[in-house]
């Protein structure tokens, strides 16, 4: 990866981190309702994987999906406006934090039922294969999803048909509030399951954007060549708790400290410095991200709420909601 590309990925990660911080602050100010599942700490997975994908590849994500949406083209302003229930939000404020979707860039949604989107990615890959487009489908999911039935059904189906789909597990060690190791029969909740389906199962440092990019690029080439799906387990850590109401006090202090020192932004910054990129260029990238997010917050705050009549649109493809004739 050349330094220009690495710098761009770094800036994208900073942009996501700052947007997440803004979402957190806006929640505390009462401007974001419901809940948020912040992905601070996971940025390198979304950004690194996206850098290895084609623009027209399909991406499916989870309720912890701000970073995927932004890595696949959603702007901080669209995302924050959605969280703040504004008409200018990514989904017109009908989705919210857990359902960020940008169909125009084939970011086909964030799904809040754990693991439900894995079979959808299989279907998108099947569709791509039938249409002969060479597109890939990628499902990002958490370690908790590896214990639900749809995960296993999806892996089997994708493997049987050698479909171009990548399953990317963000293993942040906790299934909501419970250590995944306490409730899973194998040490690697994702990668250890791959042999049962005859597909590659790999583990990568999910906090190193370069490692993620390289690994996903290799597995994507393989899938596009017709060799079928792969399962990637990216190790990472949440900087916040599971959701807004979770202070994450169940995590050992030593563990938290160790992982905070293994921050994806620090790792990328280290690689930039090592590659001889001047400090001021990194600082400029930081500053640009800060400005973009500040402006996004202001724009979202000033945006109008949705028209109440929007509650009765978009149930059906004709745009309406009528259930009777």
């Amino acid at each position, binding site marked *: 990866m050349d330094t220009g590309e690495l710098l761009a990925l770094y800036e994208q990660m900073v942009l996501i981190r700052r947007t997440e911080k803004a979402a957190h602050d806006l929640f505390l100010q009462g401007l974001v309702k419901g809940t948020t599942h912040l992905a601070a700490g996971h940025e390198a997975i979304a950004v690194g994987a996206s850098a290895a994908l084609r623009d027209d590849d*399909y991406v499916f994500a989870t309720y912890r999906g701000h970073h995927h949406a932004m890595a696949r083209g959603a702007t901080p302003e669209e995302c924050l406006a959605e969280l703040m229930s504004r008409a200018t939000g990514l989904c017109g404020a009908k*989705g919210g934090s857990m359902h960020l*979707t940008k169909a125009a860039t084939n970011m086909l949604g964030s799904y809040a*039922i754990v693991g*439900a989107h894995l079979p959808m990615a*299989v279907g998108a890959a099947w569709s791509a294969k039938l249409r002969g487009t060479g597109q890939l489908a990628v499902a990002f999911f958490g370690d908790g999803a590896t214990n639900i039935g*749809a995960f296993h*059904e999806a892996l089997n*189906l994708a493997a049987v048909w050698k479909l171009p789909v990548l399953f990317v597990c963000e293993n942040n060690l906790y299934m909501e509030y419970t250590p995944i190791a306490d409730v899973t029969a194998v040490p690697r909740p994702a990668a250890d399951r791959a042999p049962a389906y005859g597909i590659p199962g790999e583990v990568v440092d999910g906090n190193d954007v370069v490692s993620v990019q390289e690994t996903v690029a290799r597995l994507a080439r393989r899938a596009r060549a017709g060799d079928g799906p792969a399962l990637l387990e990216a190790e990472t850590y949440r900087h916040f708790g599971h959701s807004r109401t979770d202070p994450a006090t169940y995590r050992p202090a030593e563990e938290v400290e160790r992982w905070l020192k293994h921050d994806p932004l620090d790792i990328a910054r280290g690689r930039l410095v090592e590659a001889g990129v001047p400090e001021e260029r990194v600082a400029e990238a930081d500053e640009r991200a800060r400005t973009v997010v500040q402006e996004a917050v202001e724009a979202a705050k000033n945006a109008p709420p949705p028209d109440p009549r929007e509650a009765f649109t978009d149930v059906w493809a004709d745009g309406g909601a009528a*259930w009777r004739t």
Partner: protein
Amino acid sequence: MADVISYREAVAEGIAREMRRDPSVVCLGEDIGAAGGVFKTTAGLHKEFGSERVWDTPISEQAIVGAAMGAAMTGMRPVAEIMFSDFLACCWDYLANEIPKVRYMTGGQVTVPLVVRTANGGGLGFGAQHSQATENWALTVPGLKIAAPATPADVIGMMAAAIRSDDPVVFFEHKGLLATKGAPPPPDHVVELGRAAVVREGADVTLVALASMVPVALTASERLAEDGIGVEVVDLRSLVPLDTATVLASLGRTSRLVTVEENPYQGGWGATLVSVVADEGFGLLDAPVRRVAGECVPLPFADVLEEQVIPTVDKVVAAVRNLAAY
């Protein structure tokens, strides 16, 4: 084409017609390929269209419906089979949470043009886990269209409408009707969803039925005619959209209403229909409304027990007689 076609053959014929006209129509499900489906409702499709477009899946209901959804979101028109409608419960997340909501919660960005076909209902002695009439399950979920044809011609016409629909449709094929026969419809026969059919005219009582209950209602009507009671039979054909206009118009002629549902009384579609009539057609009524519906018990195995709990001609005749005399 033969002079008559069975309901079972009509399912495959309806799908084949759409697969011929639109290459984005694909099928997936358990045993639907070379085996032709456990009910032979996909017979011939694999031979004509091949394993790329008629995909045999493992027993994985979540993956079947989830993959259909992903394919529908990305340019295909999948027709997924869930073998028995009871098994819809195995993929209920997709029916209740994913497929019907994604358009709405993305603010209209994503369209899911798919059909989930399934063999519905009792009468064949399959026991409690293979005999339920489950169309009312789907009725509780905003965002699903629901088709339940009663004749071979309607199977073909409604299959065309369902597959061409940009909305998700759950298509209930009734097991008790598979062997019934009727005239094959002409090419490009399309029955728009949300159009009920008045299948028998009468001046005294409106009988509203669906799927296997349509022939039950018709047989009951013939018997009632011998008593001088004129019964108008309305075949709803689809539950969403629900054709309340045809029902209200019929009530304008008869002023009496009986619904005949195979699903349990509790939460059945008749309750929704009756509530619309109470809201908007109370002035049309000269008598209380009556619902003949399944009992609120699991479907038992033995014929003699099953007859106790699902509507029969005798039960419908009794309900209509009682109401006609009100």
